[in-house]
């Protein structure tokens, strides 16, 4: 292993600028002449815009322009990226999603006008001076009511508010129903996957610029995927040619999904920059983030598990209502369907699976992918119902899972939910978990808790996820309107140092440190000589960005492929320099040599030669040393894990204390263990937050009650235990060159059911027969359950 290469826990080089206060986030950029945008946002959930009188606002100090929905009536719509067909074959309902609301406002926070002024304060003051009449309409908030009500419509031409009614796999519907009908035991559970606000700590921010000399636009924005944003603006919304629009995602302060999507504010600042000939900047307040960032989860599910009396699984069936909010955000139709239904077989050899999802429009903020995106919802439903089933049958929760695990000799394994898992070893993960979590010592710890008057419980979970969101071929069959490859260019400069331009975007994932480890490992050079360039469409090849735990598996593989091409070319140059055939040249430790001779040339000499090709046979070797690869994998990757959590419940108050959390994951090969551990710990915190704290609450009128950090409980340091992470159990991905699987979402997928299983276990051990409590397990919910059982 090269020191600093693959597998090294290299400290992150990007940390130095962040620790010095020298990060450059979007809001840290203020081009000369910048003016500021502020948005007028609906304070009612549903209403008809009668009139907007901007005369007074336009006369306010510093005001430069006012935009309303009418200004964008003729431009395109921000589209959904996946086309989903209903069970009967009809395509989903796809409403127009305008830059600014026009005609109707459809959720609290929906922007219907924008003011541009010299200062942010002037713009905000002028928003207050807009004279607006909006006729209130009844709000559609509850999903079941939305489906039942033909009159009350989020979109006027869609009675019943149903976006689609999706079946997966539709051909399995009847066989699954028959299997459940005939099964000796069926466990049923109804549960809510609570709606979450992503809450990256950096609020969204966008700066539009326009150069009237060249006609070039530039958008600096808080994006996880600048090329995707450019594509959406160019091809769908504003029609600016891609070669006239640069999109830059500079340092970005976390995303978790919420910064994948193109938002109307981005189109607004670009349009305003063109009209005014000045840079236009908008920075969201946290309140705006709560109201307008795409939210996550929000499923209501009924799941059935049919099994033999010995716990052998026969069938899983789910019926889900998935909230998509008022408009379709870019990935919103994929999240509850192909990122959810396809995982519903879990880690198990269950022969029958059927998933039904009805997506529902409501007068709430759009809902889309949030860390895990669909897979946490699938895992939660499945792992909760398995726990309930084990309890009903009197089987140990680990034993029932082990009994049904896919075995190592069964790969590739075609799951009943339509995916082909390439590798895994779930028993091995469970072995690691039992050791790391000291499950043998649980009873002693429980007795100790009991002496202190606390109910201690143990929760177990195993999960699988489909990551490396890619194969274009597969996602295309599943309804994706885009390809999902990634790209990298490896440019060896004349003096031997290397620039690597990547399509993935780093907003906490540590690409600037991890990607050089791959290239250094392959070339045998010092990682310090390798720089990563990302986030700027004018500098990088066309890649699809960072989400779905895809950066390393997809873009890292592109880096690998491009580096391989560089080695092929460099070998030719070295062969020429040594006057031998390329086939005779060995490359190791940064040196080209001819075995059996004393001929060698160093890496740096080859790099220099590539740019000083005085004696090149030009018909055989082109000058330069730079290669690009687009990588499109054959399949998803399938990380998996086994998690354990211990909780103490205070029976007097219902307060839940998570006292331990252990994650054993199989991510395939690990490039940088330090970064991987951090990724899992971050996911665990978000999952524990979902399980115990975080709740997005709209009232019956569609007002968001949890719209600030005063009302929405974010996990803080003292809400969390020491987070123990182990990724020593490895089965390699079989189809990408690095054998890696992806780790970004695991913690958020595996932890919520683990925590809830632990609380139910604690109550059961205390003599309280509680079948289920919906997340978040707040003290009042737990206390109420304790009183009733």
């Amino acid at each position: 292993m090269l020191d600093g290469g693959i597998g090294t826990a290299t400290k992150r080089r990007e940390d130095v600028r962040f620790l010095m206060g020298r990060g450059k986030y979007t809001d840290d950029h203020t081009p000369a002449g910048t003016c500021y945008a502020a948005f007028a946002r609906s304070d009612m959930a549903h209403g008809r815009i009668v009139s907007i009188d901007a005369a007074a606002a336009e006369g306010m100090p510093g005001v430069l322009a006012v935009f309303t929905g009418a200004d964008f009536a003729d431009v395109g719509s921000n589209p959904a990226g996946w086309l989903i067909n209903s069970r009967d074959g009809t395509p989903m309902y796809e409403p127009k999603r305008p830059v600014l609301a026009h005609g109707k406002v459809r959720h609290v926070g929906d922007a219907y006008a924008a003011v541009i002024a010299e200062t942010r304060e002037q713009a905000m003051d002028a928003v207050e001076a807009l004279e607006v009449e909006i006729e209130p309409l009844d709000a559609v908030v509850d999903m079941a009511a939305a489906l039942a009500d033909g009159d009350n419509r989020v979109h006027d031409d869609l009675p019943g508010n149903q976006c689609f009614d999706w079946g997966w796999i539709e051909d399995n519907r009847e066989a699954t129903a028959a299997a459940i009908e005939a099964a000796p035991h069926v466990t049923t559970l109804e549960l809510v996957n609570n709606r979450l606000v992503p809450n990256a700590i950096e609020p969204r921010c966008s700066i539009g610029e326009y150069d009237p000399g060249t006609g070039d636009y530039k958008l600096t924005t808080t994006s996880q995927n600048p090329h995707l944003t450019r594509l959406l603006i160019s091809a769908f919304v504003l029609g600016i040619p891609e070669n006239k629009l640069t999109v830059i995602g500079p340092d970005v302060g976390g995303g978790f999904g919420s910064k994948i999507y193109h938002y109307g504010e981005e189109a607004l600042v670009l349009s305003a920059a063109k009209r005014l000939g000045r840079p236009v900047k908008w920075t969201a307040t946290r309140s705006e983030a709560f109201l307008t960032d795409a939210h996550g989860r929000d499923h209501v599910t009924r799941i059935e598990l049919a099994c033999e009396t010995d716990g052998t699984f026969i069938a899983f069936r789910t019926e889900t209502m998935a909230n998509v909010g008022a408009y379709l955000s870019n990935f919103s139709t994929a999240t509850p369907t192909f990122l959810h239904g396809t995982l519903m077989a879990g880690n198990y050899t269950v022969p029958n699976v059927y998933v039904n999802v009805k997506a529902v429009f409501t007068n709430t903020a759009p809902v889309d992918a949030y860390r895990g995106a669909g897979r946490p919802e699938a895992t939660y439903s499945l792992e909760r119902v398995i726990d309930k089933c084990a309890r009903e049958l009197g089987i140990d929760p680990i034993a029932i899972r082990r009994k049904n695990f896919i075995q190592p000799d069964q790969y590739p394994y075609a799951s009943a939910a339509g995916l082909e898992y390439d590798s895994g070893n779930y028993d091995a993960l469970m072995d690691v978990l039992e050791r790391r979590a000291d499950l043998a010592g649980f009873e002693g710890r429980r007795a100790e808790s009991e002496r202190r008057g606390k109910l201690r419980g143990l929760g177990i979970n195993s999960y699988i996820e489909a990551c490396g969101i890619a194969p274009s071929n597969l996602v295309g069959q599943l309804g994706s309107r885009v390809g999902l490859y990634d790209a990298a260019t490896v440019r060896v400069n004349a003096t031997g140092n290397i620039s690597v331009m990547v399509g993935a975007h780093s907003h906490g994932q540590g690409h600037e440190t991890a990607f050089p480890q791959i290239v250094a490992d392959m070339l045998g050079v010092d990682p310090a000589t390798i720089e990563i360039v990302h986030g700027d469409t004018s500098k990088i090849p066309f890649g699809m960005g960072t989400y779905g735990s895809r950066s390393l598996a997809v873009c890292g593989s592109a880096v690998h492929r491009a580096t391989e091409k560089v080695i092929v070319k460099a070998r030719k140059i070295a062969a020429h320099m040594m006057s031998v055939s390329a086939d005779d040249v060995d490359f190791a430790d940064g040196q080209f040599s001819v075995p059996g001779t004393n001929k060698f040339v160093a890496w740096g000499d080859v790099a220099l030669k590539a740019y000083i090709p005085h004696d090149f046979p030009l018909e055989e070797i082109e000058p330069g040393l730079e290669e690009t690869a687009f990588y499109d994998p054959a399949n998803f990757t399938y990380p998996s894990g086994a998690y354990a959590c211990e909780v103490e419940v205070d029976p007097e108050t219902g307060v839940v204390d998570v006292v331990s959390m252990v994650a054993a994951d199989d991510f395939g090969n690990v490039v940088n263990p330090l970064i991987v551990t951090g990724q899992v710990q971050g996911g665990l915190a978000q999952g524990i937050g979902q399980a115990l704290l975080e709740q997005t609450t709209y009232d019956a009128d569609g007002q968001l009650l949890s719209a600030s950090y005063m009302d929405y409980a974010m996990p803080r340091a003292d809400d969390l235990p020491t987070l123990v992470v182990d990724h020593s159990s490895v089965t390699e991905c079989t189809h990408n060159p690095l054998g890696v699987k992806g780790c970004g979402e695991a913690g958020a997928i595996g932890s919520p059911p683990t925590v809830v299983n632990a609380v139910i276990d604690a109550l059961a051990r205390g003599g309280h027969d509680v079948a289920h409590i919906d997340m978040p397990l707040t003290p009042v919910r737990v206390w109420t359950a304790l009183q009733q059982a």
Partner: protein
Amino acid sequence: MPEISMRVNGTDRTVRVENRTLLVHALRDGLRLTGTHVGCDTSQCGACTIHVDGAPVKACSMLAVEADGAEVETIEGQAMSDGSLNTIQQAFQDHHGLQCGFCTPGMVMATAALLRENPKPGDAEIRHALKGNICRCTGYQGIVNAILAASGQPVPAAMDSEPAPVAAE
């Protein structure tokens, strides 16, 4: 517009502000010290934590005019005089105490204040002291480990199968 004077990271600075301008905006927009971040509008997240006259303050919870004449320290003034990371900053890098980096300036400033008060805080004390600083990325484990290390205390092993971190390139 009033003009205020502050000593910022050891240098006398003056800046024009409106009466309603928050200190954090005076630093970011007026003095171009953009290391201090804004993560919320209810003084809850701690991304804007700085020191005013030696005490930790959320710079979004104070008007700029209130800081007239004050001694202000921000993240930009924390490195060693030779430009290298100070003990706290170095511990954050060593123990992966940051991911996106957005909460980080506030975390470093909050840590500096904590360790002045309590040079050897335990795990629970550290977690309690960080109540006013939200991090969405790290799950706080790397931050807690960094603070233990910065105060010369042993850090729990992340995993027994994990190699020790090596220096950044």
